[in-house]
């Protein structure tokens, strides 16, 4: 293999492997599936990395590819009944610190599909709004709307969780 190609690949895996895995975990909430999605994304890059062009686009390309792959592999819409509180319920104090990372990611599983991925990227802070918009091939305004709706839904899920506890 070309040394430069190999070096580029190592740099990319080094910089984005962990964050891509976290994004995948927020989408599927399963360690093995998240690993598979992350691996598959990097293998796709290894196949066509040299032809991708601009360096700055590669990060968005990785996240977009992982998300596309997730949507492709999904056999059926995975909708669980969220233990949510009514929208007009009074705010409940929830200690997010008491939960671990996977438990917080699990709450995303109860969210609407179109809100889950942008909100996960919003909290992971690896991409800015413009890059998130690139991942979903939409406008920044659309992502802002989805983040606002996603946060409202997450609060309901949190409140529901607190109510059940």
């Amino acid at each position, binding site marked *: 293999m*070309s040394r430069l190609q190999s070096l580029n690949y190592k740099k990319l895996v080094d910089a984005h492997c962990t964050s891509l895995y976290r994004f995948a975990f927020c989408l599927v909430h399963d360690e093995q599936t998240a690993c598979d999605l992350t691996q598959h994304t990097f293998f796709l890059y290894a196949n066509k990395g040299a032809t991708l062009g601009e360096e700055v686009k590669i990060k968005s390309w990785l996240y977009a590819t992982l998300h596309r792959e997730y949507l492709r592999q999904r056999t059926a819409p995975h909708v669980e009944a969220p233990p949510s509180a009514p929208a007009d319920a009074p705010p409940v104090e929830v200690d997010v610190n008491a939960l671990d990372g996977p438990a917080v990611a699990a709450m995303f599983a109860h969210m609407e599909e179109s809100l889950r991925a942008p909100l996960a990227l919003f*909290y*992971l802070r690896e991409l800015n709004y413009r890059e998130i918009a690139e991942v979903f091939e939409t406008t920044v305004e659309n992502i802002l709307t989805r983040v606002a709706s996603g946060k409202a839904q997450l609060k309901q899920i949190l409140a529901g969780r607190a109510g059940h506890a």
Partner: protein
Amino acid sequence: MTFDEAKTILNLCPPEDETNPDVPGLSGALILANANRQLGAWWEHEKKIGAQFSRKLNSIVPPAELTTTILRGGATIFFASRLIAESTGETLPEPAPLTVESSREKTAAEKLVAAFEVENKTPSVGKSWIWTWRIALLLVVIVAFLLGLLSLILIWH
């Protein structure tokens, strides 16, 4: 700007990023939150929750062997692509050097990549030259010994 409008805007501010240029009206909403105690308290609470979510999601750790598996898989793909290209006479496009942004996990991953490189390291040019000189010197000594032996035999006869 009303309080509700300010709340809507502040709600879009990414965790620990109060200068985000993509959120319209953010600086105005922040001024309002600083000026009003009630809105300020709400904003502090929201910031705390947002930062907690962010920290929790960023604390998820992938399995230790994931990076190694991805590096090995990539190496296999590159090798196979080169073999296919060589057999078909095709020229693979050479990528430009990549500058990747820093990452929080860089130190650990760097160690892994360094270990991977050491594992696959070929002997360096300097070392191979030392060995060439040693062999050449040994050959000179052997030839000199044989010539000396031949001279002694000739003198004897």
